[in-house]
């Protein structure tokens, strides 16, 4: 009787409990474990029982200058994230505006733009790896404008990685922004037409302000995603040559699995989570502020 009463009263919460518990356990458990592993010296490939407790040594290594590549890695991450997000946003907005101007076949275009998004990351990464070789596909296309670049050099590898990522992330902006554009109200545009406003003015004073929430949300999602990005960059260059493409996620995999220091890798994992969390909070705050302001 008491039990069925309890069930009846808390029905809604009991229904979400399995989902909430599943996700909580799957996130909290590895985090707590990582916190614990980060105080051990555990070599990848050996049994957990053989790990040796070292206290805060791994953190001293990380923040005390022992991790030579941390600074480089953070810098590369910032360049990588800002370039990919900014370039694919501009490109995606341009394509979405063009799509919004045509009357027919827009669904065919939309469908085609899905293809880069659902191409297996492993396949996309490897394909781009071949395309960027010296006698590869990209240099072949560039040869028409008289360029031939050594993409596997320290100077150009990051650019190659950005280009490959833009190939995946621009369609995201195209699809999202186009969906936003088609759901805008018609009245302001008709009023502007009667006033004879120029195309640029219409874009600047009507489209952009109306689209602001959509643009901001898409940018936030993409920025967080780029901080977490691992597969395509890892498969393309694996951080090299040198450390020129070593974004934080690749740095973690290098320390934890290539150099086999799982303890140090755990420190770095927690650092990446802290960064992603901080970026998320900052971006969502700015979104809330503009929503209130506008």
């Amino acid at each position, binding site marked *: 009787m008491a039990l069925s009463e309890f069930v009846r009263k808390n*029905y*809604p*919460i009991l*229904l*979400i409990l*399995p*989902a*909430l518990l*599943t*996700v909580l356990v799957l*996130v909290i*458990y*590895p985090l707590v*474990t*990582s916190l614990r*592993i980060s105080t051990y010296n555990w070599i990848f490939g050996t049994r*957990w029982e053989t790990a040796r407790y070292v206290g805060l040594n791994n953190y001293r290594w990380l923040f005390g200058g022992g991790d030579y590549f941390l600074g480089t890695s953070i810098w590369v991450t910032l360049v990588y994230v800002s370039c990919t997000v900014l370039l694919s946003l501009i490109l995606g907005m341009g*394509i979405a505006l*063009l*799509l919004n*101007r*045509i*009357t027919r*076949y827009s669904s065919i275009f*939309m*469908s085609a*733009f*899905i*293809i880069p998004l*659902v*191409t*297996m*990351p*492993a*396949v996309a990464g*490897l394909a781009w790896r*071949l*395309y960027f070789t010296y*006698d590869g*596909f990209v240099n*072949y296309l560039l040869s028409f404008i008289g360029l031939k670049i050594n993409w596997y050099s320290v100077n150009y590898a990051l650019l190659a990685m950005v280009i490959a990522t833009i*190939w995946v992330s621009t369609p995201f902006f195209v*699809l*999202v922004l186009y*969906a*936003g554009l088609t*759901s805008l109200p018609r009245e302001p545009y008709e009023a502007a037409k009667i006033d004879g406003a120029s195309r640029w003015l219409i874009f600047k004073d009507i489209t952009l302000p109306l689209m602001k*929430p*959509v643009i901001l*949300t898409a940018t936030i*999602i993409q920025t967080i995603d780029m901080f*977490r990005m*691992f*597969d395509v960059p890892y*498969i393309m260059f694996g951080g090299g040559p040198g450390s020129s493409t070593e974004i934080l996620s690749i740095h*973690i995999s290098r320390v*934890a699995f290539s150099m086999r220091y*799982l303890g140090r890798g755990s420190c770095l994992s*927690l650092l*990446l989570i802290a960064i992603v969390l901080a970026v998320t909070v900052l971006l969502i705050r700015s979104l809330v502020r503009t929503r209130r302001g506008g």
Partner: protein
Amino acid sequence: MIIKLTSRKTAEAVTYAVLIFILFLFLLPYIFMALSAFKTRLEVFAYPPVWIFKPTLENLKTVIFGHNLIFYLKNTLIICLANTALTLLISVPAAYSFARFRFKFKETAFILFLILQLVPSISVIIGFYQIAQILHIYDTCIVLIITYLLWNVPFATWMLRGFFEGIPPEVEEQALIDGYSRLGALARVTLPLAAPGLGAVVMLLFILSWNEFTLPYFLTSYNARPLSTTVMFYTTHTEVMWGEIFALGFIATIPVIFLALLVRKSYVKALTFGAVKG
């Protein structure tokens, strides 16, 4: 008037031309990959690239019969299907509860869901590796089926909540009056009405699991290796088997592209996680 009309037509023609050109550039890497799957070893590396050639099925044959494709495909299917079923079992009740009931901290719990799944996969991999080793589930399908839930459950819950909210509660109330229990009404009335949305979610979950790279790359070695990481093992110390890689890539992407095109509208919605009402 006539001049204006023709100028508008030219403008539209230019827009189409520009769009087709951009689209062509975006699809070129994929088209080139698909073509290369049917090239011989020499043709793959040819410079300038060859566009017209006598297609060969050698690469496809090697991949399918020589490199045990069926085995990896079987692993992928087991993981995708089991994970999708488990995700639905957990997410359908949760989504239904979020859509239909009012309770304390409802929106807080919902946002907690969405924030938790932001965790980077590379950051949880060491923890998963340790537990997999301790429980002796490293390199089994089980470890992947369970760990994928971390991202798939919040995603499915969020998608399904939207679909359930689109169904008026009145249809359920009628079923309740007819003597069905809450869950009975959900199963007999709401779920059939939500079937198109449910189908879309199933396909999207399938795509997510099919393409996942990071977790299987670090949590499996051979026995549970899915298609999505197999392609990495075509690069050895001595050579990279490009023809085979492209052939495998072609085989592995076709079903997913087909599914994504089927659920295009839901796919766009899924991308935004609710940001845009399309």
